[in-house]
């Protein structure tokens, strides 16, 4: 019970002070769970982090569930997961309710126009950063460009493209393996 309460508190804290994406939670989790309470080893935490990235779903939540499950079984998994998403849900629904109350006219519309432009700028920057880490060979660049064009001209939907890309990734890797042997 005490362990569960501690897990919940740590994830609630990490979830409250993590901006733009869940991965930024990690340093807080490491400090609280690995160093202070020594509930899980650093190696385990990072292995779960890598593992969480290979599965579909919310990476930060999957990671929290793995850690919670390891430390305290199914109940640990549930409290850690709840702690990881509760702040985002509460703060975001409050923010969205406020946003819905905003009259979209006059000076407020102008403020929102500026914010929307900033939002587009941040997306360009995110795309560029992702490109730098993920586009390393001919095939990945080709896939990225194809998805860009097909989405821009509205020819194929994102879910279809993601499935095709997974298959292409498999085939390319498979053919490269055959060349080695």
């Amino acid at each position, binding site marked *: 019970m005490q362990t569960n309460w501690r897990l919940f508190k740590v994830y609630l804290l990490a*979830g409250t*002070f*993590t*901006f*733009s994406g*869940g991965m930024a939670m990690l340093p807080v989790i490491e400090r609280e769970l690995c160093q202070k309470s020594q509930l899980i080893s650093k190696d385990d935490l990072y292995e779960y982090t*890598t*593992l969480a990235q*290979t599965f*579909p*779903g*919310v990476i930060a*939540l999957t990671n929290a*569930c*793995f850690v919670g*499950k*390891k430390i305290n079984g199914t109940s640990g*998994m549930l409290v850690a997961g709840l702690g990881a*998403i509760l*702040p*985002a*849900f509460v703060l*975001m*629904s409050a923010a*969205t309710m406020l946003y819905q109350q905003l009259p979209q006219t*006059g*000076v407020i519309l102008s403020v*929102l*126009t*500026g*914010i929307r*432009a*900033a*939002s*587009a*700028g*941040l997306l*360009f920057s995110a*795309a*560029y950063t*992702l*490109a730098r880490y*993920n*586009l390393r060979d001919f095939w*990945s*660049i080709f*896939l*990225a460009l194809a*998805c*860009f064009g097909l*989405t*821009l001209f509205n020819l194929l*939907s994102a879910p279809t*493209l*993601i499935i095709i*890309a*997974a*298959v292409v*990734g498999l085939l*390319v890797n498979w053919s490269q393996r055959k060349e080695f042997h």
Partner: protein
Amino acid sequence: MLAIIVAFLKIGFLGFGGGYAMLSLIFAEAERFGLTVQQFADLNALDGIIPGPIAINSATYVGQLSGGLGTALAATLAVCVPSLIIVPLYTHFETKLNDHWQVPAMLNGIKAAAVGLIMAIAALLLLTLVFQVTDITRWSGKSADWLSLLIILFVAIADLRWQINPLLLILMAGLLGGLSYYL
């Protein structure tokens, strides 16, 4: 509400590779949710302001806009389902998934696709916000919102080059937009 739950289950199970990959799936379903391009841009800005994983924030936002708090909760829980299924299954079987080459190979393909998807969404946002066209084939090149274009370029460079806090960039852009109203 059922449609939203199904949509976010789909987004969860196809959402490999992090929040931005999921964001592109949300953009693809935006029309079905009744979400305008402007509201999608606002969602991305709120993601930068409100703490938490992008997918959770997005599910809450889309649910709240389309059906209030109950729908927001349903959408958020739906996007959580993959994690709650995968973690017990994996720990039960303990198969060393990373020993198989297929998983990283598929992820490489998906991550490359995500780059293209995000870039396309950014370009579509630019077209909508600056040139007021939602479809690139209808681009006429007439009236353009130069202030928006300037902010887009400045924010992208400021974020990449000087690592200025996104929160600060959003606030500055809002202030600049507000000032432009009085000019």
